[in-house]
């Protein structure tokens, strides 16, 4: 299949840059995949009661870490890799500077797991400063771009920073807003960020695959479809935050479900059929999982008791979030190491495993008596694809680009 054809215009002059610091995604993915596995084991110990640095706020910190610990690493990888490509004048972040950013991320993770020893404001300071650094680096090209082509990414990141600050404020008792409500909003904003990222990933991946296969057609990720989905999700987030499980939220959930499914129409091209291409299936699965999340939550508010929201939300977190991270990691690891995109049985298995993990986690809603087994099973199955990823790709991340391009 295809490899990246668009690159930065300027690569920094820094000398003796180790390969693992030669481009933004390399150190992040080298650390993120093992961290996902490690953190799952840590959480297993926490939930089992072996260790508990989080006191009575286990659930809050659990969600927080996946959104702002794991999630932010994924966002960093996308921003540091994607921005020099979307804005070719931007100089990529590499070498020492990248090392310092990664050290800040590592410090954030260590401070998080030592939250019972360290003062909370210090943990907040370290973790918030990481997002500030990311935004500061991307602000000028993304937000001040006269054409405002990708400014929505910048605004979404800024919103994430506000929400993270609000969460810490709530945990410190500065704000009265319940931390869980803030985290629900954060997950919604993360879904918006995923859609914004997915739009760009889709455009690049599908077009390059078609070009490589000699298909005479063009794929467009139509902005109006994404905008309708983003608007519906944003409305869901706002109404849920202010009015809880108001019945109007149920209809908005169904609207988000329909709007997200509507994005799949992009894959219907005029001349060529791409719907059964492996990457189309993988990428569209993210949308299907996200749509299911909002659809099930909406239906539960309208026709259930509104009590199964927590379980159905895992379509978004375990499902859409997990699969999009896995896909972005795979795509970037192929394309930005100068290799052609490929699909293999391991990838198919990984995507299936994330689906299975999601369904197992969601099914707790219907089989509460088997909750413990389902939790454990779902968690184990969910981390497996990231293990497979690491096993398949760590060499690529440690080797120079196959096409000889710097980075």
């Amino acid at each position, binding site marked *: 299949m295809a490899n990246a054809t668009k690159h930065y215009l300027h690569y920094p002059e820094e000398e003796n840059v180790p390969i693992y610091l030669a481009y933004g995604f390399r150190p992040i993915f080298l650390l993120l995949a093992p961290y996902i596995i490690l953190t799952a084991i840590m959480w297993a110990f926490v939930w089992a009661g072996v260790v508990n640095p989080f006191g009575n706020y286990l659930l809050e910190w659990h969600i927080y870490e996946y959104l702002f610990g794991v999630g932010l690493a994924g966002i960093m990888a996308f921003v540091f890799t994607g921005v020099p490509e979307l804005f070719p004048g931007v100089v990529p972040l590499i070498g020492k500077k990248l090392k310092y950013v990664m050290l800040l991320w590592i410090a954030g993770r260590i401070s998080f797991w030592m939250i019972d020893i360290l003062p909370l404001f210090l943990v907040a300071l370290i973790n918030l400063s990481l997002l500030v650094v990311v935004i500061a680096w991307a602000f000028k090209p993304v937000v001040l771009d006269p054409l405002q082509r990708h400014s929505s990414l910048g605004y979404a990141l800024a919103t994430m920073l506000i929400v993270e600050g609000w969460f810490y404020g709530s945990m410190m008792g500065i704000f009265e807003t319940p931390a869980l409500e803030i985290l629900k909003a954060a997950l919604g904003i993360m879904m918006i960020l995923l859609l914004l990222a997915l739009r760009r990933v889709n455009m690049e991946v599908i077009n390059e695959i078609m070009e490589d296969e000699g298909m005479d057609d063009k794929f467009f990720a139509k902005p109006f479809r994404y905008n309708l989905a983003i608007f519906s999700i944003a409305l869901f987030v706002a109404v849920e935050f202010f009015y809880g499980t108001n*019945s109007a939220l149920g209809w908005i959930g169904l609207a988000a*479900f*329909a709007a997200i499914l509507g994005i799949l129409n992009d894959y219907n091209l005029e001349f060529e059929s791409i719907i059964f291409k492996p990457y189309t299936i993988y990428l569209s699965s993210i949308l299907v999982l996200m749509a299911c999340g909002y659809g099930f939550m909406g239906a539960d508010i309208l026709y259930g008791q509104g009590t199964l929201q927590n379980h159905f939300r895992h379509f978004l977190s375990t499902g859409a979030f997990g699969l999009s991270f896995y896909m972005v990691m795979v795509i970037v690891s192929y394309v930005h190491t100068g290799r052609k995109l490929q699909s293999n049985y391991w990838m198919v298995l990984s995507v299936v495993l994330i689906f299975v993990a999601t369904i197992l986690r969601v099914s707790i809603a219907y089989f509460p008596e088997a909750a413990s087994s389902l939790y454990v099973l779902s968690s184990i199955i969910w981390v497996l694809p990231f293990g497979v990823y690491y096993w398949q790709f760590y060499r690529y991340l440690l080797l120079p680009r196959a096409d000889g391009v710097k980075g």
Partner: protein
Amino acid sequence: MKFILKVLKDFPWFLWSGWGAVASIFLFIALWDVGYQFYGDLVLPSPKETFSAVIGFFGDEDLMKDMVLTLTRAIIGFAAALVIGSALGLMAGFFATASIMSRPIVTILVGMPPIAWVVLAMIWFGMGDTSVIFTVVIASFPIVFVGAMQGTRTIEGELKEMVDSFGLSLWQKFTNLYFPHIFSYIFPAWVSGLGMSWKIVVMAELLSSSDGIGAALAVARSQLDTTVALALVVVMIGSLLFLEYIVLEPIKKEVEAWRD
């Protein structure tokens, strides 16, 4: 046959393309829900209750009969308007004199408020089927007529000359020039006429009939049963949306594809 196969082949994606519209409808329903929460059941019943009432209709034999009756009246009226309007419109399009003569009459027909037709129909035909169907025909006819006339009048002279110069047979001229062009005008007019029929039939029944959805609406109004009233409206809109977007739109899309 090729045309039908193409429509059927594209149908799954066509259906899928409706998700955006479905999302907009759900957002509108959310707004309706907010209105219900502000004004209460009497003014604006909740969408959930309204949809439950719609489902309940399917178990109510009398209401089912009313629905079938209304749909039958609308379809008969629309079919009559379609046949008469298309035939006369085509004739008016082919003959300039007929076109000039018919224009002011069509303007009068379009300008006449449908409610006035209902009143006149009640005087002429009394309460019942004929009044309702007549009102539907007279209100939808001008729309179809104008579409057919425009379709015929706007065929480019150069294209006519071209098919003549190639010596095409009458059948070839019809299938390659006249039919695609006229149909691309007349079909949207049929769709608009259908929409008009659906609206008019309920209004005509409300005023001039003791059965049908319109009459059921009148009963719901007198009993201040807003839920049933809204549920009836939902049935009418739902059936119109189904006919227009699921049945007619794919055909329209295919028919108008040559314009691209």
